[in-house]
């Protein structure tokens, strides 16, 4: 159990990322360190100064002068007393007869003793000069005679620490190893976490959506500018779309189950009546027929609307003559209009060609027109006006009915909304026609809206439904 969880933990995105980053960082640190060590071992690089350092020379001469009276031991004691003053200076002696015999006189500890010693032993000539190593300046030799012996004097001066590197160099090895290890560990961990955390968040959100909580969104990542931020934004977009689609679907389903029950109830009652009596039987069977037709129409409408709302089917875009389409729709509905003694007046003289799904648009316009015919007064006129506005066309269908209350103007395009339920049942609408029209027009990036016509002088009133459609469909 624990072994499995450890294995799962080790194979997790975070740990993998971390281990890779760390491995690479450590490798690069080691390699670069190796290379620099090989190429520039700066401890051994020395520069011969152009001039002998006066300060050092002065110091050496002072020692030389003192040596005539004092012994080295006295000078050394002197040093000890004045320790605090010149801790950076170290005195060295060499016997010219035995070049390898190099002695350090002052007791200061230094990491560079070996380098200095080596320099003194291997120098090429006896000219007094200052040689600068990275941390030490060595000046000498100055020949003195001490205890009747030819002796060469050198002084080394510790240079002030200039860089972090020197500081690091003076640290013990274990600390020098631990510091880069810790820093790289921390940095790599932060980096790995910053990458794996959003992924985990996204995983949580996906799981919640999979469990049916569609209101879940990924939070806190939207401001991220990288790919993970983009992924989070796309995820939220997807969730939005899913939520609206499914809630639309559920609302529609709820409405439909309610709306289907009404014709079914009437059907049942009509059947009951038809079964009971002889004389009116025919009438009630006709009623049944009517209800069945309405059920059929409603189911067809519901399917169309559901497809449109969820954009299941892509639009079948093609160029066609909108004017010709409009004229064919009008002639199709002529019969329905004549039954009600309604005249359709169509003002569409200019031939307008547009891009779009002609089948969908024809359905939308038919629904608006049928709606107008249903609600217009008997013996009245329905006016259709088609206007060409450069990039878009505007189609207005006006009836001579009672209009719609102002606050309901926008609502008539929602599914199953009825201004007056009793009246609509008389006209036999499904409550879906205008909703389908709106969805179809919206899918074409167009607009549909309704306005009441109020021309008081003529007592002419009614509802005008306007459709605005762009002529070209830009792929989005």
């Amino acid at each position, binding site marked *: 159990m624990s072994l499995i969880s450890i294995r799962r933990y080790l194979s997790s995105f975070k740990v993998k990322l971390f281990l890779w980053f760390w491995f690479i960082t450590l490798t690069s640190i080691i390699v670069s360190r190796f290379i620099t060590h090989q190429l520039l071992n700066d401890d051994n690089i020395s520069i011969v100064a152009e001039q002998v350092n006066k300060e050092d020379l002065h110091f050496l001469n002072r020692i030389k002068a003192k040596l005539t009276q004092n012994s080295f031991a006295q000078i050394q004691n002197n040093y000890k007393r004045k320790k605090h003053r010149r801790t950076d200076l170290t005195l060295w002696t060499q016997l010219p007869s035995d070049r390898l015999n190099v002695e350090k006189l002052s007791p200061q500890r230094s990491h560079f003793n070996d380098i200095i010693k080596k320099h003194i032993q291997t120098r090429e000539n006896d000219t007094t000069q200052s040689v600068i190593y990275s941390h030490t300046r060595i000046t000498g030799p100055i020949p003195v005679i001490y205890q009747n012996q030819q002796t060469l004097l050198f002084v080394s001066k510790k240079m002030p620490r200039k860089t972090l590197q020197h500081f690091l160099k003076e640290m013990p090895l274990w600390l020098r190893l631990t510091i880069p290890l810790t820093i790289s560990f921390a940095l790599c961990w932060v980096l790995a976490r910053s990458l794996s955390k959003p992924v985990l968040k996204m995983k949580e959100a996906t799981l919640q959506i999979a469990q049916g909580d569609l209101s879940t969104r990924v939070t806190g990542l939207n401001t991220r500018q990288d790919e993970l931020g983009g992924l989070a934004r796309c995820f939220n977009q997807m969730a939005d779309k899913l939520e609206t689609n499914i809630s639309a679907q559920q609302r529609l389903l*709820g409405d439909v*189950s*309610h709306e289907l*029950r*009404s014709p*079914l*109830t*009437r*059907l*049942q*009652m*009509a059947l*009951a*009546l038809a079964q*009971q*009596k002889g004389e009116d039987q025919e009438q009630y069977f006709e*009623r049944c027929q009517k209800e069945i037709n309405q059920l059929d129409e409603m189911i067809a409408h519901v399917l169309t609307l559901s497809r449109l709302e969820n954009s299941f089917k892509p639009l079948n875009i093609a160029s066609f003559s909108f004017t010709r389409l409009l004229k064919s729709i009008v002639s199709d509905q002529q019969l329905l209009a004549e039954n009600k003694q309604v005249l359709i007046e169509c003002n569409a003289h200019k031939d307008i060609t547009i891009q779009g799904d002609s089948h969908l648009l024809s359905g939308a316009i038919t629904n608006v027109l049928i709606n107008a015919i249903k609600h217009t007064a008997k013996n009245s006129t329905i006016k259709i006006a088609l206007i060409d506005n450069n990039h878009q066309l505007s189609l207005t269908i006006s009836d001579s009915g009672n209009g719609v209350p102002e606050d309901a103007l926008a609502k008539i395009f929602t599914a199953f909304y009825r201004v*007056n*339920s*009793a009246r609509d*049942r*008389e006209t036999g609408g499904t409550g879906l026609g205008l909703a389908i029209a709106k969805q179809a027009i919206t899918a074409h990036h167009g607009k549909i809206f309704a306005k009441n016509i109020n021309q008081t002088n003529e007592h002419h009133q009614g509802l005008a439904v306007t459709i605005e459609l762009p002529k070209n469909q830009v792929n989005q």
Partner: protein
Amino acid sequence: MNTKRLLLIDDDKELAELLTAFLGMHQYSVDCCFDGQSGLKQAISQSYDIILLDVMMPKLNGFEVLKALGDQHKTPVLMLTAKGDDNDRVLGLELGADDYLAKPFHHQELLARIKAILRRIAITQDLKNHPNAEQTLFINGVKLNHATHQVTCHTQAVELTSTEYQVLTILMQHQGEIVSKAQLSEQVLGRKLAPFDRSIDVHVSNIRRKLLPFSDTDKIKTIRGAGYIFLSGDLS
């Protein structure tokens, strides 16, 4: 058989027309209202034997009409609901309706429900008018007065609908015994208990809720899977 007066409140005009024709054949005279507001007005101003009330209506919906009618009304209400949700169906009962019928319904079912409700009313009327019958029932602080159709709990008046009154009467007549849901359904609602039918449960919980403010102890106990029992109080 004399003609019963029936008020139908439903916004579906065509259905109203059909129902009027159908119920007319069965000796009911039907008045129709097509929205909640006018329906409520009609229900208050006129006296009816029964009200058929739709839920989804313009202006006032069925539940709002029920609330407006309140506990005071004595006319039984049969809800007609097209909503599929069980909770919606039961909500009507909680608000004081006597029974509900889901659309679409079978015409015989509708007749049977109407008859059952009317018969129930007739029984209580009978008790009222019958001088020899036991006039009151007094158990465990709850007193039923069949003559006035009034219920008191520890001398406080409690308003029950006719269906709730009927349920309580049966439970009290069988005090200390378990009365099954099936028995209550048949005796009160006049129909066999159907699976998932929560009507009786809702009626009983309504009674409990109404009695609660006036007593410290629960009068009616639920026996899981068996039914309900009216506790005789001091005897137990």
